[in-house]
């Protein structure tokens, strides 16, 4: 049993709590519903631990400042929602390219454009993975409870430091604004990962030469390495112009993550693991699906709910294993069929149609509706 305390808090608040425990000391943000509480609480809490919370002039500046702080040697994060997440896309590519560990929370709301600021949605599923230009990879975690906002935030900081990447927490309005019990372990009960820094003399150090785990050591600024860190395609010494090394570098920033997915990919199954009927969900929808599984059980219906916690890189093999033996697969999500496309790609059995139970417009699906869907669409 871990030592700690229990506190009732908002999902967004749990995120801040975890970030501070993980050592986040810089926050660059811009107000936007339904993520604003993260900025507000950070602005209260960071000064108390000698950190800095800056409300920047826009979300571009917010994330770029986070990247600067990361190279400055600090754990840093930002949080936003749809329109702000759009503005951050170029800088997400920047964080990838300069291998700056950082955490970005997207508390999703309805889109497109200004959409529905106070309503929940899951329409940024693909944007979180493919929103920036060029070939790259990153990690996207999807919490479904305030507790998971906490746990995923710790995990996000750890993964960002381990892989030197931006890690995205793809939350949504329901998870951000739910107020529920969160268990906060004492700091000594948790594991925190820190970026590895070089120790060899400057002359012997090659800035983008990877270690065995695919990740180069990070010579954060003013530690004596006089590092050239450019957003352009680069060779091992950080310069432009060597096409061959630049290509290898692009492959590496993808493979450093995708070759090590076992370290972090997570898919959970709730309910009867052998049930022929399966829901597949992510984020807040997991909650309603769980209730539906329980209600079904009372009615004598065996259902499993497959919860994809790490949505990117998509954990093909874990999802396949979790869905093994299922005869009927219903993807439930708050968009017009994004996770569905991934399931269709992963489960290629002609006899199984991947059905979609979709809710948009800020209407959160009720558990009864899951069961009704099973009956009506039979």
């Amino acid at each position, binding site marked *: 049993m871990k030592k700690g305390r229990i506190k009732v808090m908002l999902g967004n608040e749990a995120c801040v709590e975890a970030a501070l425990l993980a050592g986040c*000391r810089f926050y660059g943000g811009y107000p936007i519903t339904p993520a604003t509480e993260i900025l507000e609480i950070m602005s209260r809490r960071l000064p108390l631990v000698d950190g800095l919370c800056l409300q920047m002039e826009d979300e571009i500046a917010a994330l770029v400042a986070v990247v600067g702080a990361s190279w400055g040697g600090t754990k840093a994060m930002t949080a936003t929602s749809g329109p702000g997440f759009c503005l951050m896309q170029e800088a997400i590519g920047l964080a990838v390219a300069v291998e700056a560990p950082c955490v970005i929370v997207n508390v999703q709301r309805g889109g497109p454009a200004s959409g529905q600021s106070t309503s929940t949605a899951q329409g940024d599923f693909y944007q979180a993975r493919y929103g920036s230009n060029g070939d790259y990879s990153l990690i996207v975690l999807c919490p479904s409870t305030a507790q998971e906002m906490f746990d995923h935030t710790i995990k996000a900081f750890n993964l960002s430091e381990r892989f030197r990447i931006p890690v995205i927490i793809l939350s949504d309005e329901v998870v951000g604004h739910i107020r529920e019990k969160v268990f906060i372990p004492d700091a000594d009960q948790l594991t925190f990962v820190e970026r590895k820094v070089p120790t060899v003399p400057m002359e012997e150090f090659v800035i983008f030469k990877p270690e065995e785990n695919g990740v180069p050591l990070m010579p954060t600024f003013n530690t004596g390495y006089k590092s050239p860190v450019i957003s*352009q395609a680069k060779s091992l010494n950080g310069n432009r112009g060597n096409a061959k090394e630049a290509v290898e570098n692009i492959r590496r920033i993808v493979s450093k993550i995708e070759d090590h997915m076992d370290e972090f990919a997570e898919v959970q199954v709730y309910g009867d693991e052998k049930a022929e009927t399966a829901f597949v969900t992510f984020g807040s929808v997991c909650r309603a699906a769980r209730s539906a599984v329980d209600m079904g059980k009372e009615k004598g219906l065996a259902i499993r709910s497959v919860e994809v916690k790490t949505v990117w890189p998509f954990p093909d093999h874990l999802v396949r294993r979790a869905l093994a033996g299922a005869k009927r697969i219903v993807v439930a999500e708050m968009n017009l069929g994004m996770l569905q496309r991934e399931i269709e790609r992963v489960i290629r059995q002609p006899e199984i149609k991947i059905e979609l139970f979709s809710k948009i417009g800020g209407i959160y699906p009720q558990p009864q509706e899951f069961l009704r869907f099973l009956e009506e669409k039979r």
Partner: protein
Amino acid sequence: MNPLGEKYLRKDFLPFLFCPGCGDGMIVQAFLQAVDDLGCVDDLALTAGIGCSAWIGVYMHVDILKVLHGRAIPAAIGIKATNPSRKVVTFTGDGDCLAIGGNHLLHAARRNIDMTVVMVNNQIYAMTGGQVAPSTAVGSKTQTTPYGNLERQLNGCKVAIAAGATMVSRWSTAHPKQLIKTFKKALNHKGFSFIEIMSQCPVQTGRYLLGSGSPQFNFQWLKDHCMKEEDPSKWAEIEAQGNIPVGDFLQVEQPEFMAEVARMNQRVKEAQAKGGDR
């Protein structure tokens, strides 16, 4: 390589990517001279955006983060925020700083955060091949104003002053001595300093706007058109003649942002220790 270059340049990154006779290399040298005079190389952290001028800092053997077009200033703020003892300097072009990154300039200046923005004004988007910039003169024919530029110029120094910068200067690459002095002042200034450098771009500005691609011609153009005038009330007259006022325009002392942050943190922590949190 001259001795300054031997001492401070990143040898494995040479030659500079700049065209023959480009002013950007002169800025590298003037800045390094200032750094050498002050002996502050280990305290430097540079940032840059995108453009020819954004490469200025990359050749110097110092920590540099070269980010996205227009975003060098927020990157600098992030770096400064994590360790206020650094001397943070941003190299940015006229397009980078006044167009796509214009908003960041305003807000960094109004915060009076201790950093230096060096805006290299070659009056054009050079890297992309000679398109109109906010600093291009009215009437100029560029690749994207083939019938003449209809838009009025944005004056970086005036913008910086209006936004609250506490040190503002403009010089040109034809004024290396003054430039070195101003760099040193800025590196020691506690607050937001903005230095605009009129720089020759023989290849784009020279060929398309000024009528000659010769480095000598373009260098002379700066000598002929940059007039020392530190009294703002006289600028309009100089500008009306198609000339450019240069000089050290402003230096005042105002509360510096990171120092204020430290003070606030202290105050808040003491209050919390006493039981409140404000």
